[in-house]
């Protein structure tokens, strides 16, 4: 897939929401180990609201509107650090962009890179702090480095990098969130936010691949 059209993007974002909602028990379990166990509940709740919003946006022309609407819906409904951070992940990069009917691989990689920058501005986290940035940063790096034109191939690289990033979080002491009080006792457990990023990128890749195979998109 070389371009992400409005309808393909809408389909893809709804698939992200579905996957997170399905993963709620898994995310809760991960967060309970070192956090307070509410990450899955918060994410699933926000994604449910985002899904309802996206369902009303089937007809539109600006792909960035979808990302903005998804992020803003999450930001204004979820609460918690996740509401701000994941809301910003979806909307941060889309803010202020010239309207566009479709995104190519370059534009999509740029969108994700700009979102990462905005997430880091809000949350102040760096790689190694045991947050979602540990999965998002390597994924963005992989997308930025990708020289090809295929969105599915690019997202596969991003998904692999994010998965590796999640693994890495097991070694880290947390600098943010409730796990930080645990200090070295947080070592050995993966970060729930990073896990969510991996699930989202995997859902993006899987959905675009499925759309391609079904011939929905070009």
């Amino acid at each position, binding site marked *: 897939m070389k371009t992400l059209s409005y309808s393909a993007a809408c389909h893809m974002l709804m698939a992200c929401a579905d996957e997170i909602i399905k993963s709620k028990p898994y995310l809760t379990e991960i967060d309970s180990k070192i*956090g307070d*166990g*509410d990450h899955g509940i918060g994410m699933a709740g926000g994604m449910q609201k985002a899904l309802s919003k996206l369902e009303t946006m089937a007809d539109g022309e600006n792909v960035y509107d979808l990302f903005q609407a998804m992020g803003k819906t999450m930001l204004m409904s979820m*609460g*918690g650090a*996740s*509401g*701000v951070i994941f809301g910003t992940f979806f909307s941060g990069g889309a803010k202020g962009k010239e309207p566009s009917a479709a995104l190519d691989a370059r534009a999509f990689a740029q969108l994700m890179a700009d979102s990462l920058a905005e997430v880091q501005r809000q949350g102040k986290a760096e790689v190694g702090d045991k947050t979602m940035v540990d999965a998002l940063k390597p994924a963005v790096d992989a997308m930025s480095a990708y020289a090809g034109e295929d969105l599915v191939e690019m997202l596969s690289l991003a998904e692999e990098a994010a998965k590796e990033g999640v693994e890495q979080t097991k070694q880290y002491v947390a600098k943010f969130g*409730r796990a930080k009080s645990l200090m070295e006792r947080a070592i050995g457990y993966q970060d729930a936010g990073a896990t969510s990023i991996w699930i989202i990128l995997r859902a993006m890749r899987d959905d675009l691949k499925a759309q391609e195979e079904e011939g929905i998109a070009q």
Partner: protein
Amino acid sequence: MKKIINAPGDVVLECAEGFVAAYGDQYEMVPETAGIKVKNMKDKPALVIGGGTGHEPMFEFFLGENLADASACGNIFASPDPGTIFRTAMSVDRGQGVLFVYGNYTGDNMNFDMAAEMLEEEGIPSRTVRVTDDIASAPKDRLYDRRGIAGDFFVIRIAGAATASGLSLDEAFRVTEKANQNTFTIGVGLSGATIPGEEKPIFTLPDGEIEFGLGIHGEPGVKRTKLLPADELVDNLYENLLADSGIQAGDCVCCYVNGLGSTTLMELCIMNRRLRQLLERDGIQIHDMEVNSLVTTQEMAGASITLMKVDDELKRYYDTPCTSPYYTRR
């Protein structure tokens, strides 16, 4: 875990609705939120508190005469979103600005800061005190990383009295931050809590073991030991508090023994008895003692001890009578 609830997603709103059903003569819902406000807001700086739900009566119900004016409530143990906080603040602003007081957590900080920015765009000034009383949550050189736990009770009481006393927003902020800087808490957990609708508790402890330095969201603590007799347990908590706070002979303190939900008043009183013995032994003056379960974590078992070092100014605000359905001081 058995709980008397309907749909898990409705817990927060239905809880607030039940409170207003009982005390609707003085309180009402903040429109479009699950939070509550006082009905007859006076002309004064507004005191808005909030955070995750699930700690009742703290935050949601800690409103009234010389207490907070409104509560911005999030989901169970999760900060409210910026829109909720903004609407809550707007509902009680009387043109003298808004004082936010809440526990120092990443999520609360981000969401309340965004709401403060939204207020600023409306030309409404706000000031923020993040409660940082939990000495177990970060070392002394990272005070800014410490969580707010049962010390919320003291800091919000001082803030309530200060904002109602005729002080400006800035002055009320100064007094409240002073209370925060002088409030120290350490707790111990005996068993975990379950988020309504979830099957498993957030954490479990083996029989006969306790967790030192737990948070009020069931976050695992910092040290696990075997269960100790009450006096030994209190001795241990007290020594940690004194070492960290520097409170010493000749100082004057307010004390608060807080139960986390299912620990009985009987146990809390046994703890408080020992606490008084220790303070008297060490020549620390006791201005007041409170034994209660005001900052809870669902059915979690455990307790904390809070000491607030008070000077004449803090004593004056602390002694201001206050009223609410679950906490009254004449």
